[in-house]
């Protein structure tokens, strides 16, 4: 495998972990974040501190990256999750930007110029393993009572409450888990690039993650996987028309919202069972249609 292709696979694998987290928050719990790059930044810097300054093993660095991001999200959540939708959104935006600006001004960690010399510990294998674990845990979570309660909160907050679901608690759970994913992704990114800079974690990055989730389809894990892979590869393949890429991107986002708001997969999961069901349904629909046609023909005869 050429190292170029391998590089893109690694990047999409790292993106995927952050996207999975955001997918839980936005697709399943219905919350919208503009600050996930901030959680990635926290993860990246914490992991880098662990491995370069404290000389701890990489695995500890990844765990620390996830944990600090989760901790930060808990603080943000406590302050803002009780507020109405847009406030949370703006708060995450403010948080993400604030993290970036703080890092910009913190010379101890390289400031705006960035922090080079992080060990290149991330390999394609540990990315793939974490991807698999990430998908498995998330799939288990959304098909448990915890996941169902999050979905209920997304669907109809008041009804969820009356059904005994502590809305705040489940929003918080979704946020913390999703920030932990972002933190892990940040840790991997830092040890893949071997160089981190606050600029890498700007609002543009947060927006990109959200767009991948939407593109893949809200409420679909397989959609998020597909989205992360396609949308990391596509820009690389489109290098030639690079400057028009984001123009098309922007239009596509509007187009999806207007034309196909549920995204690529929208709530549909790609599993053997769901595929079987899908084809069975189609067969049934075909049969029903044939029956209908026959019936119409019959009626037509009567009419004559």
């Amino acid at each position, binding site marked *: 495998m050429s190292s170029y292709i391998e590089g893109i696979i690694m990047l999409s694998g790292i993106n995927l972990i952050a996207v999975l987290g955001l997918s839980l928050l936005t697709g399943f719990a219905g919350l919208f974040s503009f600050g996930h790059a901030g959680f990635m930044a926290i993860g990246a810097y914490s992991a880098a501190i662990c491995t370069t300054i404290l000389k701890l093993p990489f695995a500890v660095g990844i765990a620390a990256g996830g944990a600090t991001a989760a901790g930060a999200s808990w603080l943000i959540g406590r302050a803002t999750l009780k507020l109405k939708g847009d406030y949370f959104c703006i708060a995450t935006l403010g948080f993400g930007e604030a993290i970036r600006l703080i890092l910009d001004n913190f010379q101890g960690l390289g400031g705006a110029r960035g922090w080079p010399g992080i060990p290149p510990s991330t390999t394609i294998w540990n990315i793939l393993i974490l991807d698999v674990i990430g998908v498995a*845990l998330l799939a*288990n*979570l959304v098909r*448990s*009572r*915890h*996941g*169902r*309660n999050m*979905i*209920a909160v997304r*669907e*109809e907050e*008041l*009804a*969820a*409450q*009356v*059904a*005994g*679901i*502590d*809305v705040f608690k489940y929003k918080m*759970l979704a946020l913390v888990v999703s920030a932990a994913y972002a933190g892990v992704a940040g840790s991997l990114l830092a040890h893949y690039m071997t160089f981190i800079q606050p600029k890498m974690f700007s609002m543009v990055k947060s927006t990109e993650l959200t767009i991948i989730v939407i593109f893949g389809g809200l409420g679909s894990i397989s959609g998020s996987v597909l989205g992360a892979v396609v949308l990391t590869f596509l820009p690389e393949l489109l290098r030639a028309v690079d400057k028009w890429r984001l123009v098309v991107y922007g239009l596509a986002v509007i187009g999806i919202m207007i034309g196909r708001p549920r995204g690529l997969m929208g*709530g549909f999961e790609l599993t053997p069972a769901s595929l079987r069901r899908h084809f069975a349904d189609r067969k049934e629909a075909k049969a029903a249609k044939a029956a209908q046609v026959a019936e119409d023909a019959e009626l037509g005869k009567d009419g004559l």
Partner: protein
Amino acid sequence: MSDILQVRGLTKRFGGLAAVSEVDFSVREGGIAGLIGPNGAGKTTIFNLITGVYKVTAGAVTFEGKDITDTEPYKIADIGITRTFQNIRLFKNLTVFDNVLTACHASAGYGLFDSLVRTPRFRREEKVLRDKSIELLSILGLADRKDAIANGLPYGLQRRLEITRALALDPRLLLLDEPAAGMNPDETEQLMRLIADIRDRFKLSVLVIEHHMDLVMRLCEHIVVLNFGQKLADGTPDAIRGDKCVIEAYLGGGDE
């Protein structure tokens, strides 16, 4: 028989406007009580106060002898009260089965870790939840629709599903907010039998807000009449039918 729910001096003001003022009534254990009154009389507000959706301005709500005034809505279900909404609030994009399954959550105790790695405990308790959901759906006659998306159900069945979802929480008091709204006489008749049936089968008490006078008079053993946020009368259907105040303010108004 003792009272399962008592409401004393219940008052709610929005700004300067009193939506409900000084209302007293109670629901007897195992009984079906009705809450009637013209639009804007404060019926739904009372439901919102009992279930903690609104904060009470003054007064108290007691359930099974315990003060539950201003308890958070999600705790109300644990305590044993559930409700339906006037403008049906289902989990619209989920299947009928998932609507009920979600509401069954309180019957399982497995933790986050059990969810993430699917422990034996998770499998065991999930099975219990699924069986319970199927059983409820069969009792309410929705079993053959279990894979339909809630939003696509006919109106009457959506109401029925909302009641099923409420029952999934094993309530001892069920609050129904205009369950017959938008139904034809046939459906209303069916619904009436369903409510009585539910009461007997699940051994619970019911408080129902309703506009169909006919339904209320035949179904309820006790009726509370509200007007402009105040209680006008309180008694058996016969007593209400004969009450002068009620006839003047409501029944005689000719707007039913």
